[in-house]
C-alpha cells in the first residue's frame, strides 16, 4: 500500500516526516474512535429493544 500522498508532496512544500506521522496517526486514531463509538451505538440501540421487552414484562 504505497502512499498517494506523495502526489501532493510534489506540488507543495512537505512538512517534516515526524509531523506527517503524527497527523496520520491522529487520523487513524480518529477512525478507530469513530468505529468504536459506532459499535457502541449499534449494540446499545439493539439492547434498547431488550429493555422495552423487559419493561413490558416488568
Amino acid at each position, binding site marked *: 500500500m504505497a502512499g498517494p*500522498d506523495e502526489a501532493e508532496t510534489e*506540488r507543495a*512544500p512537505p512538512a517534516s516526516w515526524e509531523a506527517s506521522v503524527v*497527523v496520520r496517526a491522529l487520523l487513524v486514531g480518529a*477512525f478507530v474512535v469513530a468505529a*468504536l463509538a459506532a459499535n*457502541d*451505538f449499534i449494540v446499545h440501540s439493539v439492547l434498547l429493544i431488550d429493555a422495552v421487552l*423487559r419493561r413490558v414484562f416488568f
Partner: protein
Amino acid sequence: MWETFEAAVGFIPHGRLLVAAVLVVCGAQLCAIVLGLRRRLSPGAQAIQGTSLLLIPIVAAVSFRASWMTTLGALAGAPASGVQAFTDGLNGLVNASPMAAVGTLIALELWAIGLAVALGSEPEMPATAARGALVFAGLSATLVGVVLCGSYAIHELASLADVEPERKATMLRAALDFTRDHLIRFALISRWTIVGLGALAMVFVVRDPKASSRRALARQAMCAALLLLFAAGLTIVARPLRAESELAWPPPSAGEYLLAADPITPDLVGPDAVERAPVVQIFVDRLALDGDKVTADDLRDRLLTLRNNFILLRPGVSFDGVAVIVADRAASTSQLRRALGAVHEAGYLSPMFAFARSETSVRPLFGPVTRVHATAVRAGLFDRIDDDVDRGLGKDLSDRGVIVPLERFTSYESLARRLVEARRTGSAVSVRLGD
C-alpha cells in the same frame, strides 16, 4: 443459536436465496476492496458497482411479497388451515426483515470502505484515510451478532405463545439474558477487531517514509476532527441507551398475576402465592369484579356464570372455588360481609385474600416504572348453614383450621392481620360469615 438461524431461514420464503444474495453481494464488495487496494478500481467504477447492493432488497421484496400473499390467503381461506398459513406468513415477514436490513447494512458498510479505498488511490485524497476507513470493517461481527441474536429472540418470543402465562416472564427473561450476553460477546469481537485493524493501519502509517505536504496534513487533521465530532455525537446519543441497558432490572416478582394496585390493601405479606382466579375488589364505596363495577347481586350472578363456565369447559376437573379478594384496608365489616356473602353464595369457598404492594423502580430511559407485588392468604369461607349441613352429614370440621369469625373485627385491616398471623403458623384458616 446457529440452529435457530437455520430455522429462521427456513421460515422465510426464498430464505436460502436471500442468504445467498447477501453473501454474493458482500463477497463482491470484498473483491472490490481488494481491487481498490491494488489500484485496479476507480472511484467511479466502485460507485457504479454499488448498484449490486440492490440485489438484497429486491430478493427481500420477493420474499416479503410471498409472505404477505400467504398471510392474505390465510385470511380468505378455511379457518382450520388458515391459522397455520397465517402464522407461516407472519413468521416469514418477521424473520426476513432483520436479515434483509442487516445484510444490506453490512454490504453498504463494505461498499463504503471500498469507495474510501478507491478514493485513496486518487492523488487528491490521502491514502491514510483509506487505510483508516478499513477499521469500520470491524463492525461486521456486531452486525452478524444482531442478525443471529435477532433470529433467536424472535424464535423464543414465538415459542412463548404455547407457554402457560405464569412461565412467560421467566422464559422471556432467560431468552433476553441469553441474546444480550451473546450480542455483547459479538460486540467485544468487533471492538478488538477495530482496535487490531487500527493498529495495522498505524503500522502502515509509521512505516511510510514519505512526508506529506502541509496542505495534505491540514486536510487530514480536518478529517480527524470531523470523525472525532461524529464519535462524540454518537457517544452523547448512546449515553442514555447505555445507562438503560447497563442498569440491571429487579428480579421477577412472585405476585405477577395481580396487575391492579387498587384498592390499597393492608400493608402485609401473606404466606401464599396469588393464583389465577376472578378478582373481587372491595372498595369502601363500591365493588368490582375483574375491574368492572358491580353490585353485590351482580357479583354473585357473574361469579356463578364464571363457575358454570369453568365446569362446562373443564369436564371432570373439580371446581377449586378460588376467588382473589382485593379489599380496601379501610373497608368495614359490613362491606366485607356483603361482598363475601355474594362470593360464598356463588360457591367460591376458598378465597385468597390478596395484599398488593407497589414497587417502583426508576429507569434512566423509562423513568419510574411500577409493578404490583402481591401475596395472599388462602382461607376457607363458610357460614352457619354450612356448619349445620356439614355436621348433619357427619363431616370432619377440623380441616377448617383456625376459625376467624368476621363479626369480631371492625375493619378489614384487623381481620387481615389475624388471617396472616393464623396462616403463618402453618395451619389452615377459615373465615366464618356472621348473620
